[in-house]
Each structure stands twice: as structure tokens, then as C-alpha cells.
């Protein structure tokens, strides 16, 4: 069997955060891959929703994005933003929002709008449904590559709120429960219930604590005991490699 890639560990770790019978709004890319892995394993009754108006799709071909007809193949409902984002997410019945990000900071604030390097601003895709999901889902999982510049002390643009300024969500006027996990290709991060700051939960096999800390832009809280993230099972690997992303459209991203 091919060596296990860090993206595969990351995606399997993301999948395990999803629970059966949940309703999940998924962004395109790794969140979607993780969601399908969960649905094919421990969470067969999970309902994935796409912001464009899709419930419970079962794609057979890997899509290039949310606007690709492949993503909504064999869904049981096609509607629109108003239903998925309004009557589910804003209604408060979405258990998990599963997002990608350009940057996430120690309070779980997400930036998908712009980067600032040497004073130069570069714009990216903006929020789309990201702000809505981060504001309104009961809990938010972010999945992204672990790089120092992608995990800064404070995001260059606060597109989607986490625990802004370390404040509790209710105090911010937000309804959704806020950041729950950041899953990277090096580790799984949670949030301290008191301080609302990012806190290491588990290291992926093959990653050292030093590696994580050296590649994190903020002071990551490290509890006394840090678990090791379980490796993907043989069945999870088979599903990812043969069924969910056979062409490594998404899993090929990180070595």
C-alpha cells in the first residue's frame, strides 16, 4: 500500500469530527471529501448540505467546485440559498459548518478575503457562505494546511468571526456556537473553553510538537497530555483513494 499522506490523515481526522444523523454545511474541497468519508463510514445518516441549494448529494465523480454539476448528483433536494442558508443555517438547525480557510487565528477567526504581504494587499474569493456558516452553525470545523503564515496571531481580514477578541459568542451577538476544531495536516486543534484560545488536541503521526509550534504563527496552548491522531484505517484509505478522490484532485495538495 502507498505511504499514508498527511492530507489523508487530516481528512480522516476531519471526518471523525462529524457525527451520524448530523446536518452539516460543507465547503468545497477537503471539507466535502471529509464529509463523504464520514458518510461512507461511521455516519451514514449524516446530511450534507451545500449553500447553493443541495441536500444529501451522492456524487460519483469528483467535482471541481460548488458550481460543478458533479457535486450535486443524486441529491434528494435541490433548492437554493434561501432554503439551505436561510431555513437551515440561519434557522439554527445546522450542527456543523465545515470550512476551508486562507488564514485562521488563535480565536478561530477566519480570513478568506485577502492577504497582506510587505504592505501589498491581494484579494481572494471573499466570504461566499463562509461568514454565514461561521456565524450561524452550532459548531465550526476548519480544515487547512498547517503553515505559519496561515495561522497568524490575528487574521489580516476578519471575514468570518470566531471568538473575536477572545469574547464569548453570545456577547458578540452571534448565535452559532463558534469554532470547534482546526484540523491541519500536522495536528488537530480545539479551543480552551475559558479563554477561547486555540489549544493543541492531537498530533498527527510523524509530526513533532516542535514542528507544530515552529509552524504556528500564534502561541498555541499545549495541554499536559497531547494525544496522537489515529491513522486512517485501511478502509478509510481505500475509500479516499478509490472512490472519493481517485484522481487526487484534493488529496494531492499536500505531500
Amino acid at each position: 500500500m502507498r505511504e499514508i499522506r498527511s492530507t489523508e490523515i487530516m481528512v480522516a481526522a476531519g471526518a471523525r469530527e462529524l457525527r451520524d444523523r448530523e446536518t452539516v454545511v460543507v465547503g468545497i474541497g477537503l471539507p466535502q471529501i471529509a464529509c463523504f468519508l464520514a458518510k461512507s463510514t461511521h455516519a451514514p445518516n449524516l446530511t450534507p448540505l451545500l449553500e447553493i441549494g443541495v441536500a444529501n448529494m451522492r456524487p460519483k465523480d469528483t467535482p471541481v467546485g460548488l458550481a460543478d454539476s458533479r457535486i450535486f448528483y443524486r441529491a434528494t433536494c435541490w433548492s437554493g440559498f434561501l432554503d439551505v442558508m436561510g431555513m437551515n443555517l440561519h434557522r439554527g438547525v445546522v450542527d456543523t459548518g465545515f470550512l476551508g480557510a486562507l488564514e485562521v487565528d488563535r480565536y478561530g477567526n477566519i480570513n478568506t478575503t485577502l492577504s497582506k504581504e510587505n504592505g501589498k494587499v491581494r484579494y481572494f474569493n471573499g466570504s461566499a457562505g463562509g461568514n454565514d456558516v461561521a456565524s450561524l452553525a452550532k459548531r465550526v470545523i476548519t480544515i487547512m494546511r498547517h503553515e505559519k503564515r496561515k495561522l497568524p496571531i490575528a487574521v489580516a481580514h476578519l471575514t468570518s468571526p470566531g471568538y473575536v477578541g477572545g469574547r464569548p459568542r453570545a456577547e458578540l451577538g452571534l448565535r452559532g456556537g463558534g469554532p470547534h476544531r482546526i484540523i491541519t495536516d500536522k495536528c488537530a486543534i480545539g479551543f480552551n473553553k475559558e479563554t477561547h484560545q486555540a489549544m493543541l488536541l492531537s498530533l498527527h503521526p510523524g509530526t513533532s510538537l516542535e514542528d507544530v509550534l515552529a509552524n504556528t504563527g500564534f502561541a498555541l496552548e499545549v495541554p499536559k497530555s497531547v494525544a496522537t491522531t489515529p491513522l486512517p484505517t485501511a478502509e478509510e484509505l481505500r475509500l479516499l483513494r478509490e472512490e472519493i478522490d481517485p484522481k487526487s484532485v484534493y488529496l494531492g495538495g499536500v505531500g
Partner: protein
Amino acid sequence: MPEVVASVPNGAHIGLGGFAIARNVIAIAHELIRQNKHDLTVSQGVAGLDTDLLVGAGLVRRLIIGGGSLDRFGPVHNINRAREQGSLTFEDWTSLSLCFRYLAGALGLSFIPIKSLIASEILERLEQGSGAGEVARIACPFTGEPYVAMRALVPDIAFIHVQKADEEGNCRIDGPRWENEEQAKAAKRLVIIAEEIVPTEAFQREPERTIIPAHRVEAVVHLPWAAHPTAVYGSYDYDGAHLKLYVEHSKRPERIGDYINAYIRGTKDHREYLEKIGGEAHLASLKADPELGY
């Protein structure tokens, strides 16, 4: 179709029905460019190739979008570059907030509350920029809960690409509909671009599937492949090769003009454009499998 586009005044606010690389009103965007429209305001939930083209061609003065993407083909380079250069007025929203604003417009409500945007830089930038008059922090009169009130969004004219319409304007949309219904019904004028014209009888057989009824529609333009190179569920797939070619041009400011000259200004109409990109033979390769829809 040229007549419908000719009726769009310079400075008008147009709402476009596409999403990223799906059901974009490409033929309309091309014709707006050919007719040298200018100072347009464009609104769209998640901007795609059509809006990126209009910005790249310099037609847009103000952009009201929730995001923008060409999916894995790349970002909306023209839009992003215009923001970086400050060459247009830009209002950054979110998918749901724009949908709610169109919903308010469709319902004839001058405002609507939302729980998104709160505690974000999106809201702060709107308040400090050209969106200042579009948002207000309010409290629910019953619960006291904080909301952002948003002004209704009412395009002067909306262009929506649908799979099936009849000659009277009844429309069916196959696949997800993002904010199409709310945008269409918010707009003061509504133009439908239809992949296929079907008899009214088809709507009378399944009236539950009518998303936009005829009396709301000003004009139906029957123009197959009008969304190329973006995808139309059930009709054709996105044209990956052409999207790559587009992104190659759009990511370099000195090259987008070449694309516009070759494919838009260099073609008289959509038929010539389709010839230019490869004609019947190439289009045949994009046709959707009826079972898969792509």
C-alpha cells in the same frame, strides 16, 4: 437579444443569475461589452466568469457581491485586481446576506434583518465604505437581540439563464437555484435567457416546477449555449479547456484585452463566438449525459 441589451441604460444596476462557473449569462455579458456599456452596477451572489469579464472590460463602476470564484480554475482575477487597484467601488457581502437582500426586494420589504455579518470586518468595511447606507445595527423589537438590518437589493434589470422557458416567459430551473428566484423577483425588469423553449403545455402539466411565472418576465431570449464556457445542468458541462484559457488571460492585466478582442469584440454575436471557440464539433463534446446531467 442585442435590442434587449441596448435597452440597458449606462449606469444601470444589473443582477446576474450565474454562480461561479454555472449558468452564467455569458452571451449577455459579451453583448454588453460589444455595445460599450459603462458605469454599470453589478450584483450577484457569488460572482463568476460573466461578472469577471464585465469588470475586465471596464464596464463596471460598482460591484455588490457575496464572493467570487471560478472554482478550481482560479479566482476572479479581473475583479480581484480591480479591488487591488481601487478602480471600482466594491461592496463585499456574503451568500446569505445578498440572498436576504434580494428576498427583501422580492417581497417588497425595504429592509430585512440578519444574524450574519455581526462582529466581522465585512460589516465594518460596509459601514465605512459605500455600503454605509445599506446596513444599520438594530435590535429585535420583541427580544432585543442584535441584528444587522440590510436595505433591500433591487436590480434595475436581472438576467437569468434557465434551462426551459415557454414563449410567455414561464421558467423552469433544473438543479440548485442559489439566489435566482429572489434576484429575479426583486428586479424591476427581468430578462430570461433560455436554453430551450418548450410549449406552455409543459408548464401546465407540472406547474409545481415553475420557478418564475410568465407575468414577471419582460423578455425571453432563446439562445442555446448562451452560458458557455460555464455549465448548465442537464444541458452541458463547463468547458475546462476554455476556462483554463480564460484564466491564463485574466490573470495577466496585459492579456485580458487580447481575450476580449479575440472572443468578444472580434465576434459579431454569440453564434460567431461559438464558431470561434470550436463550433458544433467542440460543443458536442460538452453535451450533458442525460442521466448524469453533466
